[in-house]
């Protein structure tokens, strides 16, 4: 690994994208992700890449569609309200089976909301966000190191399956500074026979489109795409387990909520409670298998989130509601304190259903 340096999450993800071979960034500034655009604006011209500040988020995502259709690794980034604006374009990407990386450094909502960190776009990210039957690959980093590592993973998976990938971070992940070792690896090169690269008169033209004139044709496209989704669900679930070997109370948390919860799990252990944590790294596909396995041994689950309870639905679905699941949450840009999570663990341990 390279020598460690100190980076902001937003800078680390931007540099990682460049290292992963991305040379086309289209964006529009919004707090708390503006450093991604600022970093790209400085770096891209020096390496022959394209940084373009579009006139709007809608324009930016449509530029990603164009670059992706030409077979280029491309990306955009924004924060919650900007992602809503991009959602139409993201749906078109899904419909066109185009890869690409969309970064959401979430802030509080709904509406204009605020600029402080949040995880309240979980539903939007994991259910598709725009119109139509589709999913995004959704990755949730919990450190500056993972902000960088998951950018590589995201681009690779996105191109392998031809499905857009969303890196779902939050304001703290974007703004915090931590040591990071940027991965010393080159980008995976993935063949793109479907890309619009010019036929040179040697093959039939490729067509990239999300419009099907016949309903049965659209159904076939969707069914084919869902077969890929099935493969992803089966093979790509990622999570990290912390002190789960003998855990009776399972905390489920991602991103910054997982960082706080890990401290809470340590405190609960010191109090004699057998607490552990499963941290989803892929939010879609959700790590159902790890949760289901944990349900055999744990007596209760606590979902810790920076929203009013969104991931908790996936926790309940994964364990088929066979154990009580309680919620510990803050919203509007607030972060649960370790003490609040400890209190939720204690209550779950005592058998109370609501934390």
């Amino acid at each position, binding site marked *: 690994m390279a020598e460690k*340096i*100190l980076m902001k999450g937003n800078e680390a993800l931007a540099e990682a994208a460049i290292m992963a071979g991305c040379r086309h960034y289209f964006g529009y500034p919004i707090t708390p992700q503006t450093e991604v655009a600022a970093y790209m604006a400085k770096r891209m011209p020096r390496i022959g890449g394209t940084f373009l500040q579009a006139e709007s988020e809608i324009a930016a995502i449509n530029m990603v569609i164009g670059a992706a259709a030409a077979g280029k690794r491309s990306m955009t980034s924004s924060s919650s309200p900007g992602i809503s604006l991009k959602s139409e374009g993201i749906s078109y990407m899904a419909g066109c089976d185009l890869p690409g990386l969309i970064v959401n450094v979430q802030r*509080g909502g709904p509406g204009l909301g*605020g*600029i402080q960190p949040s995880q309240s776009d979980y539903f939007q990210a994991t259910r598709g966000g725009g119109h139509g039957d589709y999913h995004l690959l959704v990755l949730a980093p919990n450190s500056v190191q993972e902000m960088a590592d998951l950018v590589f993973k995201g681009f690779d998976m996105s191109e392998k399956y031809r499905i857009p990938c969303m890196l779902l971070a939050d304001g*703290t992940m974007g703004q915090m500074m931590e*040591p990071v070792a940027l991965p010393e690896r080159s980008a995976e090169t993935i063949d793109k026979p479907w890309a619009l690269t010019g036929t040179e008169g040697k093959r039939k033209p490729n067509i990239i489109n999300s419009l099907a004139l016949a309903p049965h044709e659209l159904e076939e496209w969707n069914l084919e795409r869902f077969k890929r989704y099935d493969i992803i669900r089966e093979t790509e679930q990622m999570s990290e387990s912390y002190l789960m070997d003998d855990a009776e109370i399972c905390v489920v948390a991602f991103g910054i909520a997982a960082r706080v919860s890990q401290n809470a799990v340590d405190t609960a252990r010191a109090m004699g409670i057998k607490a552990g944590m499963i941290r989803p790294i892929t939010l879609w596909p959700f790590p159902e298998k790890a949760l289901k396995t944990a349900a055999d041994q744990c007596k209760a689950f606590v979902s810790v989130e920076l929203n009013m309870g969104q991931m908790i639905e996936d926790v309940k679905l994964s364990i088929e509601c066979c154990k009580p699941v309680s919620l510990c949450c803050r919203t509007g840009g607030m972060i649960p304190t*370790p003490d609040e999570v400890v209190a939720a663990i204690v209550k779950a341990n005592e058998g109370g259903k609501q934390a």
Partner: protein
Amino acid sequence: MPMRIKRVTLFAGHYGSGKTNIAVNYALYLRSLGKPVAIGDLDIVNPYYRAKDSQAELEKAGIRVIASAYANSNVDVPALPQEMYSLTEDRKTFAVMDIGGDDRGALALGRYMPAISEENDYDLLFVFNRSRPLTRNAQSAMTIMREIETACGLPFTGIVHNTNLGRETTPKTILDALPVVQELCGISGLPLLFTAVRSDLAPLLPQNIGEIFPMTLQKTIW
């Protein structure tokens, strides 16, 4: 720690070099010497992680904290309060000013520059962290130093060494950067005033690297 103390001490430097932690600790240090102290949060760049985060601790120590009423709120505007002028007007109080990163952050200093310059009892200190990707060597640090001077209209008067990797900082992290710091002092012609380190690391450093300034860092809940 015998250090030269000016009426106004300003900390500027590259984005993420550690200015805020140093400014907060320096204000507390001046106060511990029994001086009347005010600290100004002039960061117009960062939405989070600012001097205002330490407001309660600073005020408890008897330090006046001057920051935008909008800092740490959802009002995302680069505003500074009129009270900030008291840092230059009230010459009986020692002023510590935490400037936002890079030349963009230093622009905010322009309006206070004439008074600071006229009084001429200040240190504008360049905070240097070799672990940041855009200041890995003396030359790149010099570039940023010149950009800041152009933006704020004041020349730097000294260098503060703050190489760190956050929680993973070891004495080696700091010592490995010393040749670069010496080179930076050489080409800029500026003195190294002190090396800022997390307080638990201070006893582990050799005595011959100049003044060491031990710091308590802002706590996080993760």
